[in-house]
């Protein structure tokens, strides 16, 4: 009797996700936090109670809230105060941002240097956030989180298909070819697809997952094209300036429709970047702690 084989084909997108989703999971506390924030009758006290159970998370959230990134005058000395001043949705996105760098351990260091990888990701998050602030967007923390997460698909590839991804990295470097094009040619999908799918599995809000999935094709974003455009441009800015390194040796093409959607004058970029640079090292130290 013939059976229908539902196992995903080796090296397919689903296969990659299935292989890694049990290894790379967000801390349980993030799920609890999402649950309590989404609950219609939850209070600031409920949210505070959940976060306070994790001392590491509490400390890092407070450090971030008191860092130059926020620039508040009065000291934010409790999660309750942070939730009140910054907002609960924003706090949720910040919790994601400070949790995720610890999730990916055991990635082969010969393929990707975790220090420069997170430098690029965090620079992209800060830059995207600065672009969103320039545009006076309401929730800039989810743009920050999406920027930090935008390349996690590459980490999944490093872990699940190290041999193939290693070849792609070498080809990208030697031919100065676009790594994302090489990924698509070889695998039929890109690190952006992988990142988007992983975040979906993690039940991360679509306002963060879709911009990650569409950061090389912001026009394809159905619900959050503006957020996708922030990440798209921030990624290009960070690669142009050499802030960190995530495996891509060249600056990816700028999508014209995304640039027009952002409606940011080119001569404002220098000013925006000037605000980003002083925030890089401290934010990186807070998010990565003592990691090498």
């Amino acid at each position, binding site marked *: 009797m013939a059976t229908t084989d539902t196992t995903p084909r080796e090296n397919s997108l689903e296969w990659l996700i299935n292989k890694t989703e049990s290894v790379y999971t967000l801390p349980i506390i993030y799920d609890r936090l999402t649950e309590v924030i989404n609950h219609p009758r939850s209070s600031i006290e409920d949210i505070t109670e959940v976060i306070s159970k994790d001392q590491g998370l509490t400390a890092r959230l407070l450090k971030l809230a008191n860092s130059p990134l926020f620039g508040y005058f009065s000291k934010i000395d409790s999660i309750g105060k942070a939730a009140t001043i910054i907002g609960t949705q924003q706090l949720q996105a910040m919790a994601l941002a400070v949790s995720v760098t610890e999730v990916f351990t055991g990635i082969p260091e010969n393929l990707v240097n975790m220090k420069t990888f997170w430098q690029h990701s965090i620079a992209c998050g800060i830059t995207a956030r600065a672009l969103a602030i320039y545009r006076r967007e309401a929730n800039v923390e989810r743009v920050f989180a999406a920027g930090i997460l935008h390349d996690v698909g590459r980490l999944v590839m490093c872990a699940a298909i190290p041999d193939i991804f290693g070849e792609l990295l070498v080809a990208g470097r030697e031919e*100065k070819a676009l790594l994302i094009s090489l990924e698509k040619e070889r695998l039929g999908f890109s690190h952006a697809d992988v990142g988007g799918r992983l975040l979906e599995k993690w039940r991360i809000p679509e306002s963060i997952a879709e911009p990650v999935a569409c950061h090389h094709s912001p026009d394809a974003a159905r619900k959050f094209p503006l957020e996708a455009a922030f990440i798209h441009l921030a990624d290009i800015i960070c690669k142009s*300036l050499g802030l960190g390194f995530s495996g891509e040796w060249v600056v990816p093409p*700028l999508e014209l429709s995304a640039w027009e959607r952002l409606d940011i004058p080119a*001569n404002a970029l*220098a*000013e925006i970047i000037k605000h980003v640079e002083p925030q890089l090292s401290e934010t990186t130290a807070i998010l990565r702690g003592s990691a090498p």
Partner: protein
Amino acid sequence: MGKILTDNLASGMILGADVRDRNGRLLLGTGTILSDRHLYILRTWGVIEVEIAGADDGGKGHNSAITIEPALWSAIEKEIAPLFRHADNTHPAIMELMRLRILREAAHGNH
């Protein structure tokens, strides 16, 4: 009255218009005489430029103090060309990012 980039402000200048945050909340009112502390607030809140009383509109331009020898400029330009080979270097945003990269390389003194 004209707009001045936050980075080019100095204490003692007088605001020609209210400065509001992204939610429309008032940060600093018209007529405020800027102190160093005010400059700090404006920077940390991501305010890019403000109206200054008595400034002419010519004050908006780049206040670039860095000058680079043309030979050094073209050497760096040549060096970073491969990085931008997949980008449209006639697009204003890409041209600006190339310029900033060149300034950055020159400032870091790697040349």
